[in-house]
């Protein structure tokens, strides 16, 4: 054994770094162990597009906990925002795009040509969702419960309701429903999975830059969040070790005593936080049987579908971004086609119709690319988790399919491509998302059957997104263990 630490954090992604920073600020000796040569996890600039590099993970932020930004002083460590509120913009094959702006009048004005009734209803729909979303912060921001009985009933209703049924009840026009369809497929869910409507409430519970439900892009790209967290963690005294893949957890009885690295080195620690998915932590790093038979069986489930990221470097910004630069562009034909696509992807095939979310970060932050080059970052859902033909054969077909869709909405786009790159989906490693998981308490999501081992990554969040809330709470729980308050 070497270098005994109080706490070891596995994975130097934003969540692992945030947890480490919190613990170090509370006085613990913390080491972060990262398998890759650079820290930052999915937010590190690791995907090359021609001469440029971008993160393989998210291209925008929708859920980062504002308290983490404040408490860890991320602003002082370099986190600034380039775009503060990307409006959900549904692109349509015919007619003007649907801009669901924060300004209720603008949104209604944009919806009116599609459906007068939906235009009238939109403001009320969002208001109700935001009011409910704020109430939900009691359980999704803190370790609490919903205050009012009526709200608990509403939550129960949403847990039973599919996103499709939820949207059908609220809107009549396909265009409006389709604009929301992309978000309903978060975590590999189908818009007709019972409980998928919770994803809308979860999004409404978020706050970015002081705006409820906003989607933002940091200056310098999402990688700058990772840089700020590295800086904050190091300032707090965290030791970050890169290129040290963890091979297994060391246990004594039912409690963790440290980790063994792939190099053979063993490090002792009283607490281990893992920012990896629950399945990888418990089935791959922990000794066989440590998770328990039933848990292991449950954990084997992977998400039903995956998502991939495609990034293009373009000579000029795509046409649809010219009229509405601060948009989060959703391309989905119909809600029904998303449901059918999900079933197709689940069967291992590339769906005929795909749903896309596109952003053009260079419109807000020209420093991301030299000269007049623009970046178009596209998330694609739903994709097969383990394609019949294998990822290597699927990737070029996927690229062609996505480019064909983009070309329809931005004629001439293909001609302006400088470089293109597509990232492999990481769904096979992720945990499956269920309504039950979203509604379980923080402790149930963070704790493991192994004493002293906690999850602090995306796996412990209610829905997969970069929020660092699990890290903040896991750090508090770990801190209490260190002080001996919890036995």
């Amino acid at each position, binding site marked *: 054994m070497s270098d005994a630490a109080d706490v070891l954090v596995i994975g130097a992604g934003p969540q692992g770094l945030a947890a480490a920073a919190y613990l170090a600020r509370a006085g613990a000796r913390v080491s972060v162990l990262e398998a890759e040569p650079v820290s930052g996890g999915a937010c590190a600039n690791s995907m090359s597009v021609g001469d440029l590099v971008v993160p393989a993970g998210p291209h925008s932020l929708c859920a980062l906990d504002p308290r983490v930004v404040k408490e860890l002083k991320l602003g002082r460590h370099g986190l600034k925002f380039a775009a503060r509120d990307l409006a959900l913009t549904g692109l349509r094959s015919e007619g003007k795009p649907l801009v669901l702006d924060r300004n209720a009048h603008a949104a209604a004005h944009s919806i009116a040509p599609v459906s007068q009734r939906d235009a009238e209803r939109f403001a009320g729909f969002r208001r109700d969702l935001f009011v409910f979303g704020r109430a939900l912060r009691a359980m999704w921001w803190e370790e609490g419960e919903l205050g009012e*009985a009526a709200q608990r009933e509403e939550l129960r209703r949403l847990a*039973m*309701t599919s996103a499709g049924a939820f949207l059908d009840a609220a809107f009549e026009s396909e265009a409006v429903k389709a604009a929301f369809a992309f978000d309903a497929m978060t975590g590999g869910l189908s818009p*007709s*999975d019972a409980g*998928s409507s919770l994803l809308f409430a979860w999004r409404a519970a978020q706050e970015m830059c002081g705006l409820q439900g906003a989607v933002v892009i940091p200056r310098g790209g999402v990688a700058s969040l990772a840089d700020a967290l590295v800086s904050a963690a190091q300032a707090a005294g965290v030791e970050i070790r890169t290129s040290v893949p963890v091979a297994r957890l060391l246990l004594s009885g039912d409690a963790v005593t440290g980790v063994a690295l792939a190099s053979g080195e063993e490090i002792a620690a009283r607490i281990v936080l893992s920012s990896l998915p629950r399945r990888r932590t418990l089935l791959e790093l922990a000794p066989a049987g440590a998770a328990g038979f039933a848990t292991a069986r449950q954990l084997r489930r992977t998400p039903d579908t995956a998502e991939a990221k495609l990034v293009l470097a373009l000579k000029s910004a795509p046409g649809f971004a010219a009229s509405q630069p601060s948009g989060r562009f959703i391309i989905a034909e119909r809600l029904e086609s998303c449901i059918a696509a999900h*079933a*197709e992807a689940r069967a291992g095939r590339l769906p005929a119709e795909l749903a896309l979310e596109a952003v053009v970060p260079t419109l807000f932050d020209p420093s991301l690319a030299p000269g007049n080059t623009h970046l178009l970052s596209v998330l694609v859902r739903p994709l097969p988790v383990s394609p019949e033909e294998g990822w290597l054969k699927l990737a070029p077909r996927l690229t062609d399919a996505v480019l064909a869709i983009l070309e329809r909405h931005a004629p001439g786009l293909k001609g302006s491509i400088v470089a293109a790159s597509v990232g492999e989906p990481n769904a096979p490693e992720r945990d499956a998302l*269920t309504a039950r998981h979203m509604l379980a308490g923080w402790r149930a999501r963070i704790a493991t059957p192994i004493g002293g081992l906690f999850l602090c990554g995306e796996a412990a969040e209610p829905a997969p997104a970069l929020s660092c809330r699990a890290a903040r709470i896991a750090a508090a729980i770990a801190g209490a263990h260190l002080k001996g308050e919890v036995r």
Partner: protein
Amino acid sequence: MRYDACIIGAGADGLAAAATLAGRGLKVAVVERDSHPGGRCATREFHPGFRASPFVDELPAIPQDIFWSLDLARRGALLMSAPASLALWPGKQSLLQPSAGRAQALRRAIAERVLADAAQPPKRGLFASAAPTAPWPGEELAARTLLDVLDESSADSAECAHLLAALLDGQVCDPALAGSALQLLAGSRGGMAAGGLGRLGDALRAAAEEAGAEITCGLEATDIKRAGRRVAAVGLADGSEVAARAVISTLDLKRTFLSLFSWSELPRALVDRVGAFRPAPSMARLLVALEAPPDPPAGTDPIALRGPIHVAPDAAALDDATRAWRSGAAPERPPVMLRLVSAVDPSLAPDGAATLTVTLGAIPHTPFDGAWTREKRDKLRDTALAAVEAVWPGIAKRVLGAELIVPPDTEDMLGLTGGDLSGGELTADQMLGFRPFVEASGTRTPVEGLYLAGPSSTLGPLATCASGVAAARALMADFAAGRLK
């Protein structure tokens, strides 16, 4: 004259409600638009000498206590126990005994809960904020997928596909979706009625009439009239009115609220809830007259022909069929279930001949390219007969006649929105406390004096007759509490 209760629809649920109320001395009128009471409890001659139940061969089971309290056995309803179901693949077969088990216990617990709620005076008024309710039995199934549950109880994928086919029985459902496990709660097969389901309908009619209910057939209810907020009368197609203190509707949810009321007089929220309710019609039937009964397929126990025969059930094919259904296309390989109904009940076919029913699943209500034309019907008929031919090669020569029933036919004949026999898709947000919607779960509706029984009500898809009895009990409890003078 003013009745205590007017019941719209003389199906099993309506007749059970009528018998229950009239048995307690209430004055009850039943109005039925068809010329004959019974609803889906019907048996009809579809080819000279050949009879079959056009909509289903078996209904969900009637709870034992209701069956005996209505004295249905003495009135001629004889339900034969549900036989094992057979699955036939090329060169392979398996037999599956109907299992009772946990789902039945859950259904019983749910029925008890609804009946107990019915006996309590209502807690909430018109669209008051929903009071918290205790979890429903079986609610935990909403978090699971049907495949997940069936996987646990089946040895291999073929058995799983068989279980799935036997459970869905022609209903459409994507078993890999969260919440699909609630399909387990849908009523189990209650066995075929001797002499056809029509005999059960007759027994229920006798029970209602002997108790003193007045049944008027051939007259459609067109609207529900209200005095203030409370129901006052049911308007009929001939312009007359049945004055009543309370109304039980056994029509499906959409017909009840959207065709019996003018929308402007209902609260907007109620119209919205009803509008959002989703039927999922997906079943077509082919009634086939055969000049001679087919031989059992090689290696099959003749006794196995008495039950449902699933033709090559396959999870991937079901998946494709479900997707085709979603996009409004008739699938190439729909799930097919055959029943040689005359093997169980020889009275359904002339001597030496046989009656076969073919149930096709995942058939859209209206094909994406327009209504059911003659060509499309012929194509579907050929699909069905091809499936029969796969089981019994050469059977086509024995077919004397056949009648195809697609969802719009069911809709016309039964007056059921979309022709969806389950009265609304069985998804988590349309089951248990959310069926048909939160404020109307159980049997009371937001309209004072109107009770909902029938397929769209909470108990509708779970059991036969039970929703009618629940509505009757709620009505009596409200009378006793002096709420409906």
